[in-house]
Each structure stands twice: as structure tokens, then as C-alpha cells.
């Protein structure tokens, strides 16, 4: 490529642009055609929620308990902490023993909190009863 490449558009860039344009074009064409040609006959029954053929009871907008949310949040926390550990591993030699000690303290805290969450039942899907 080199320094001269910004002067004239290189052929590969042109190809990419053409490709992108055709992708967008085809998708747009299909969407418009579908929207325009697709038959629409809305009726009360057709717009009703499908619930095995029965008229639903009550609203679906309720305070829905999400036990998996806790599990997901915990996973995220430990995931982020793994990043710190990896970063430290790259520069472990430069940081020396001081870094090591800090890491051990950090990981110990992590383990204690994991044990706490575990004991509280945060990892147990079914124990997270709200009533």
C-alpha cells in the first residue's frame, strides 16, 4: 500500500464498497418488497397472543422473578476479575513480589466473596424463592 495509497482509491476498496452496497441494496429490496407485497389482514384473533389456543389470563407485565439474573451478574463479576489476573500475569516479572502479594490478597477476597455468595444460595437456581 505505502504512503501513496490515499491518492487514488485502490481497487480492493472499490470492491468492498460495491459489495457493501449490494448487500444493503438486496436487503432493502427484500424488505420493501415484503412490506409492500405481503398481505396484511389484521383481526382480533390474529393479533392476540398465542397461548396454545387459549385466551391468555392476566397480564404478562408483572414483577417476574429472575433467579438466573443473579447467576449472570456473578459470572460477569468473575469474568471481569479474570481480566485483571491476565493483565497481571503479563507483567508479573516486572511487578515482582509486591505485585504477587497484592494479587494474592485480591484473589483471597474474591474467594471469600464467592464462598459467601455460594452459602447465601445465589448460585442455586431453585433456592432463590421470593415468597
Amino acid at each position: 500500500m505505502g504512503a501513496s495509497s490515499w491518492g487514488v482509491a485502490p481497487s480492493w476498496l472499490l470492491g468492498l464498497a460495491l459489495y457493501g452496497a449490494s448487500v444493503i441494496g438486496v436487503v432493502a429490496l427484500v424488505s420493501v418488497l415484503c412490506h409492500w407485497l405481503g398481505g396484511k389482514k389484521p383481526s382480533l384473533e390474529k393479533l392476540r397472543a398465542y397461548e396454545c389456543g387459549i385466551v391468555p389470563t392476566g397480564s404478562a407485565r408483572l414483577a417476574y422473578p429472575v433467579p438466573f439474573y443473579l447467576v449472570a451478574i456473578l459470572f460477569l463479576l468473575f469474568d471481569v476479575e479474570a481480566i485483571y489476573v491476565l493483565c497481571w500475569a503479563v507483567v508479573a516479572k516486572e511487578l515482582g513480589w509486591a505485585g504477587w502479594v497484592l494479587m494474592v490478597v485480591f484473589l483471597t477476597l474474591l474467594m471469600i466473596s464467592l464462598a459467601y455468595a455460594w452459602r447465601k444460595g445465589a448460585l442455586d437456581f431453585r433456592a432463590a424463592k421470593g415468597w
Partner: protein
Amino acid sequence: MDLPLRAVDIIVNWARQRSLWPMFFGLSCCFVEEAAAFTSRYDIARFGAEVLRGSPRQADLLIVSGTVFKKIAPVVLRLYEQMAEPKWVISMGSCSNSGGMYDVYSVVQGVDQILPVDLYIPGCPPRPEAVLQALVKLQKKIAQERPARRILGLEGGSQGTERGPLVDGTTKTRDPRGTGLETTPVRGTSATPPRFRENRYHMIWTPRAPCLQMEGGPPHYLKKLEELLNGAAHLEVPTVDMPCVWVQGERILDALNFLKRESIPKFLRLEDLTVVDESARRSRRPDHRFTVVYHLLAFDPPTRMRVKVALAGDPPKVPSVTSIWPSANWYEREAFDMFGVIFEGHPNLRRLLMPPWWKGHPLRKDEPGRATEMPPYTEEDAKRAQPLDASEIIPRKTDSQETLILNLGPHHLGTHGLMRFVLELHGEEIVDVGMDIGYHHRGVEKIGERQTWHQFIPYTDRVDYLSGAANNLSYLCAVEKLAGVEVPPRAQFIRVMLTEMFRISNHLVWFATFAHDVGAMTPNFYTFRERERLLDIVEFITGARLHPSWFRIGGVAQDLPDGWKEAVMGFARDFPSKLVEYEAMITSNPIFKARTKGIGCLDAQKALEWGVSGPNLRACGVEWDLRKAFPYSGYEEFQFDVPTGRDGDCYSRYLVRVEEMRQSVRIIEQAAQRMPDGPWLPEEYRYIVPPKEESLRHIETLIHHFINVTQGPRIPEGEVYFATECPRGEQGYYLVSEGLGYPYRLRIRAPGFANVQVIPDLARGATISDLLAIIGSIDYILPDIDR
């Protein structure tokens, strides 16, 4: 303008023809054949219609397969209306086409009365090939359509279904006699079988029913019962099959409490509870209108007995026995629904099978039996008569802000038929389960009162449509017991062989669906392969696949064809190795184990008390099998084991059924090897339909043939209960005969009815995915629950 439009037509039609998305609406037997159409042998995907859709949003072809009931019709119509446009409808099978053999109060006489139909597939049930043919025919119809104008928003053109539903009297007729026969009377009026003038049928002599011999007088527990009730109980003699006690209504709780808790043996199970309407008796009409009949079962030693209560008064009332057997809940609700008998003290006495808007009690003798006697069921009816709202099925237990009410079924892959579960959910966890049944109520008990003893045989096949000939056996054993017919050994062996084939065939479908319920798709394609092979043999012997209707009173319809033995032995040789293949896929599969082990645990005591039977009972560790406890049809001559489980969970039920298939192969092998020679029908032609070639040679035989085919054999007066070990559990027939060609009352004790009553107890506290595993492992079938 026309030419370019024509080009658009061709392109659009080409695309539509080859990408049909069928939605199943599996109502009954036909759906099994429809489902077989997408397994490996038939492979519907070759025709551009991929795996059946479960939701109307993704489908443009509705295949209504099976009986359309008045209770389910609003759901059928709703799903049709929820489908994308343009849409097409195929009606599969006689029931969906016209009501078929179910001209009965609960059945819509043709789905075309509520929605437009493009194509009808005849047959009862049609073969899977017929589904493929229908698909090809529908593709041809689509090729004739002119969708371009519609698509472009112009006038004219055509696409999808254009005409509306048919109207009785103008565009269709519901007359059961057919054109040109309007002057002949319809056979079987609502109340009683017809009486023809100057008919000498009633003068035919028949012997008395065999009589139960009680050596040394009535058993000890009956004497104690009579003492205890002090005049409020008396023994009925003679009886055919088991001791029977009449008890006064107000003392029934004392009597049943004694029999369940104190007598020796203890009658732990309420086998069946039903009612007989006495008002149409021809001979010896009793003073009371209704009789409540309780059948009880003791396990050790195996003993059965019958308790009866006479009910007079309007409305008739009797104390509820739900305090003694919780399983009486549904039995009493059914009796209330069908006869209007009030059970005092019942926790929730409302209709069970009939829709909430129904007027009257259909099994009363003065209620209409045929749908064609009633006004036609129309689209307006289907729009108006909605199923009960979920909140009426389970009242919420907890604060309504926290829980969600969800309907699972009647149209759902996981419910294995038209069953409606109403779930109260806290997140994914089930707080409470309500069940609503009756979407598959075919009124066979009413039909039984107007069909002759022989004519009823085809109806029995369809009571548990996956067990075919096994159903024939329960009914015929009862009839033969009442008539004292001796079945020749060859016929008994043939019956056992076919019954066991259907046990395997049923368990193969169960294996596939259960594995599918917990996420494994593959076993479908393996088990249906073997099932097809088995059905080929059944077809080779009987001429039919699902519903052979091949057993007859006293024996079977024909002798075995040449070459049967090679086919049967070949299967028996190969099948065990196939079972090893299935087990390699599933038995130690960690995902399968995680989904089934420790899920839905049922303890043995509870299973006994709730009347749970079959593999579900054996999975709790109870070694109880009617083939061993009350041997019938020569089962005592076969060597086989009764597999039992340990934990009563879904996994145990799985293991028991797999082992049962192995034992069934053993029985089939023994039956084939030791098949006796000789006749396959009894020598005496009093009750049977003699072979045609015989009846062409002797006048006596011809007379028997004529009488027994046209009016039905006169089965002796009396009543009998007989149960056999069907693939799903204990299926019993209770027959009351007045000595006519028709039963006076026919009652079916279905295994599923008792088995599913425990599901809420198993499911509370579990998650939705556990519930589906539980449903799959219980292995019920709807025509047998709702009958």
C-alpha cells in the same frame, strides 16, 4: 397487462408450492400417522414441506388430523385465524372430514362446518403415504391459483382458501343414512336400542351367565362388613366375576373405610367409580333411578370386589368418598358431569369432560346420543363457546403480582394430545398446576349402548390408539367372561403375540417422544424405523396398521397368513440389538440423566392409593402386573419377568419401559415358537361371527352369522368387570348386559385417567422443563383419559 401477471403467478406459485409450512393440529389417531409421515421411511421433507410447525405464526398449511370435538373446536378455529395468509387447510381422516364413526354428542360432524377445507384425506386412519399424496394434490391446487393480482393489490385473482365453511342442509348433509335412504329409520335412538315389530329376536334362548362359586360361603371380610353395617348392607347373588355388596347410601363411607383400612385383605385401590342409569331397563326395572358402582382392588392377595349404592331422589345424592381415596375426585366429577349425581362433600364438584356451557348429562338414558340428532355445530358456536378461563381452573394461591398464569396445551407438542395444563408460575418454578380435560371426549360409553357387541370392537382400538389390538383384548375378555366363551389355545396365543407387539410399538413411540421432550431429536428416527417394521408385520397378519380390530368374540378374525413365523421370528431376533442401540444413545446420556433422575418422584404408597398402574406403578418398586396377578388369555404359560424400578422418578419409569420391551420380545418369541395348531374360533357358534365359507355351507351356521351380524349375539344377562395389562396400565371394561345384542351400559376404566391425576403433586415446586419430563414419563394418551 395479463401476460406479465401470469408470469408473476407462475413464479409465486412455484415458490409457494415448494415451501409449504404445515402446522399440525393433532387431535387423535390420525396424527400418529401424520407424524409418521415426517420420519425416515416417508420423509415429508422430500416434498418441500419441512418438519411440522407447532405455532400458527410460522405456518400456512393447517392439517387437522383426527376427531374435532365441540370442546376443542374454538381452539381449532382460533389457530386457523392466527395463521399467516394465504393459508390452506387439509382435513385428515374420517373424523375430521365428517365425524366418521363418532356420530356422538361431543363431536363436530366435520371440521368444514367451522372453517373452510381445501382437501380431504379419507381413511380411518389414512396411511402416512396419504398425507404425502394430499400434499402433492394441494401443490397442484396452488398451481391453479392466480395470486399476482392479490399481491399487487388489484381486483380479482385468487389465492388460498376462497370459500367459507359449509352449512348443514345447503352445502353439506349430516344425514347418517346417506342419499336415497331417507325413509329408513336411523339405527339406535337416543335412549335405547330399537325394538322392531314382530321381531322374534327376543325369543332366542341363551344360557345363563356363569356364576361365581364361593366355596364355604362368602369371604370373611364380607361377613364382617355385613355385621358392621347391621342391615345396611346385603350381598348380591349370583354374580359373574366378583363378590358384590349393596350398601345404603348414608353408610357408604363406613363401608368403604372398613374395606380400605380394616378388612383382610385391605382394598387399597379404588379401581373405578361409575354410575348406571336404571331408567331404561326392559326387564326387572329397579325402584331407584341410578346405581353408583365402586370397584375395589386389594393387592395382597389379588382380590376384586364391587360395592353398589342405589340412588333415588332428584337430584340424586350420595356422600363423596374423596376423603378415603383422593383419586375419587375426578371419578366423582365425571359421574356428576355424565349423570348429574351430586356427591356431597366433594371439594370441587363441577363438570370434568363436557364443556362448561353444556346443558344436560349425556350418559343419562334420556339424553341424545347422536350429534346428528342435535343442531349442527357452526362457526358461530366455535366463536362463542370458549374454554374456561384459566383463573377458574386454578384459583391463585399467592399474591397475584408475583405469579404468572400460563396455559400449556391443549395445542402443545409437549402435552402429547389435547390436554390443558394451567400453570401458576413464579419465574420458572411451578407454584400450582391445574388440569382441564375433556377436549378429547368421544362419548364411546354412549356409543357402546347402541352398537352390537361385535360392532363395538373397532371402537375399542381407538380408546388407546397407540395400543391397537391390546384394547380389543380387554373388551373381549369381559364379553367372553360374561358369555362363558372358551377361547381356543391357538387364538389365545395369537392374541398374546399381537398384544405384545403393540406393547412394543407403543413403547417405541413413547421412547421417541420422551427423548424428544427432554431435548433428544434423534431417537425418533431410530424407534420409528423399528415401529414401521413391526407395523408391517401387524399389517401382514391383520390387514391394518394402527387399528386392526382383528380380535373377535371367541378368537380372532382369521388364521395367521403363510409366512408369518419368519417375519415374527426375524423381528424377535433383530429387535434386542436395536434396543441396545437406543440405550447407547440415551440410558447413560448425562443430559438425559440430569433431566430425569430425581424428577417427579412418586412413592409407592401414594401410587397404590391413587390407582396408578402399569409401568408407572412398577417404577415405584411395586411388582404388580395383571398378567401375573390375574392371568388371562393364557399368560400363565409364558415365561417373562416383571421389571420394577426403585426410585419412582422419571428415570425409573424410563428404565422399566425399556426393560418391558425386552420382556415383550421374549413373550413374542415364545408365542411364535410354541404356537399351537387348531381352530382360531370356538366350535360353538352361539355368540361368534362364523367364518363366511362355513356359513355358506350349513344353514345353522348361516343363521348364526345372520343374527350375530345384524342384531348382535344375545349375551347373557349380568354384569362383569375385566381388566388387562395394557401398555399404559390397567384397562378395564365394566359391562352390564340385559341379555340383548347391545350392552345396557359399557364403562371403560382407563389407566390414564388415574395416572395423570397425580401429575400436579409431582410437578409442584419443579420447573416447567421438569413438568415436560414428567408428562413424557407418565405416558398417557387422551382418548383413554377422556374416552
